[in-house]
């Protein structure tokens, strides 16, 4: 995108947009969100004593019905994604895996996100550590919530009570992990002053080259160049603080 002053031929700013997420990724992300949110809300109504009045009688039946309707799509989404784009599906799972740069990211994340300090962050791939963490937790909890939820739905009375108890407990623990992660993810995506670009990418599929260079250097420059730039930035930061 180019911004140009009226009546002149001169460009003021040029933003180069580069594709970041595929249409299928974005569709999957938003359908996942659209089913996760009602699932979390209806689940929490049964979980939080403060919301007890919403869980009673007809309202409670409705809440449980919404949970069941939403979970069908929530449960099918990854499977559909795998059927439609199996290679991309496996690539996405691989992308969520941690490497040693992610540890460096976690260590610097506090000062970066809270204090807005642009101290040298280890170069990130297309997904940064926080996004990976979110993806990984969503994958693990999808499995746990799915298995335990299916037993709770169809196994009541059919499976031993002891097993059912474990299912309820694990469903709760997985829910806590997923909802806590979701809240942090939501904050970083929607409310964090530095992170506006993520939301733009998830909407339109593109990101600005400048943003990608800073936040996703390993993806933008490739691992070798990104490493080189990172080492230079670190040296610079050290020499600046020693002066």
């Amino acid at each position, binding site marked *: 995108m180019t911004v140009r002053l009226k009546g002149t031929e001169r460009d003021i700013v040029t933003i180069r947009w580069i594709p970041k997420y595929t249409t299928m990724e974005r569709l999957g992300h938003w359908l996942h969100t659209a089913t996760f949110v009602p699932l979390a809300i209806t689940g929490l109504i049964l979980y939080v004593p403060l919301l007890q009045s919403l869980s*009673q009688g007809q309202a409670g039946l409705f809440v449980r019905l919404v949970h069941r309707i939403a979970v069908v799509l929530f449960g099918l989404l990854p499977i559909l994604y795998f059927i439609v784009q199996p290679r991309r599906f496996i690539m996405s799972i691989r992308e969520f895996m941690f490497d040693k740069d992610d540890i460096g990211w976690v260590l610097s994340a506090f000062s970066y996100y809270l204090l807005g300090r642009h101290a040298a962050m280890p170069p990130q791939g297309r997904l940064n550590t926080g996004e990976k963490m979110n993806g990984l937790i969503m994958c693990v909890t999808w499995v746990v919530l799915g298995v335990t939820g299916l037993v709770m739905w169809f196994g009541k009375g059919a499976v031993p009570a002891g097993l059912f108890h474990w299912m309820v407990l694990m469903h709760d623990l997985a829910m806590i992990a997923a909802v806590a992660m979701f809240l942090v993810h939501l904050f970083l995506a929607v409310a964090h002053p530095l992170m506006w670009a993520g939301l733009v990418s998830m909407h339109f599929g593109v990101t600005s080259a400048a943003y990608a260079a800073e936040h996703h250097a390993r993806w933008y420059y490739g691992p070798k160049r990104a490493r080189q730039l990172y080492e230079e930035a670190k040296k610079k930061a050290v020499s600046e603080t020693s002066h």
Partner: protein
Amino acid sequence: MQPSDRASASAPDEDDVAILYDASKCIGCRACERACKECNNLPAEPVPLSDLSAITWNLIKQRKGVDQADWPFFNFQCMHCTDAACVMVCPTGALYKDKRSFVAVDEDKCNGCGYCTQFCPFGVPGLKDINLITGEAKVGKCIFCCQNQPQEGIGRVACVEACPTGALTLDWRENQLEVARDRIAQLKADGHSKAVLYGESEAGGLHCLSILLDEPSAYGLPVDPQGPITFSSIWQKIIQPLGEVALGATVLGVITAFFVTRRNIRMEEVE
């Protein structure tokens, strides 16, 4: 009937009422079963059951391998525990302790989740009108004939009133315990060496006490229905609050982070 805060009580109160069942007086006539059905307007089971259900609230069971002449019967119904797991896990408050410490049911509040059916150590509550797909269902179990009960005094229950042999009686719990102890001493003297009272301290103290002629396990009863730590208490007293604290802390953390970040980033811009 108002829910009381008895659900968390760990010991029965002095003014609690209890049923006492004496297996050494029960002839298995099933008059109690019929009276329960009539009094509570419960339909007949389509096929005879070997266990309680949402529409069968008491059942005469038999000890296996015991001769008919050896008092094999056992009246199985809701035990109305002091530490009732069903009340603890019910997310809606449909199951609650009524003023006299019985576990009552407010069917209008029930959303059919069925946690009670899975957490009761005796397997008492059942679900009726079940729709497996939508999850629609309603709980059903002995409500101590609550609809006929006064808020004070001993009251009346159908099964006890129908019992022709005095195997079922209703009185203050303290009195029942005394009667039961005397009866057990007498039974032991008569050669029933295994005679035992079930329910004095089990699950915090039951409100349906039983004089048994053999070990509880012979009647299919759990020896220690709640044990020192139960799953329902781990779930309700540890995991549930832990989850609330964790999620509450996350929300608070995120909000704090928002303001801290905004402030720091603004200051940076000023610099």
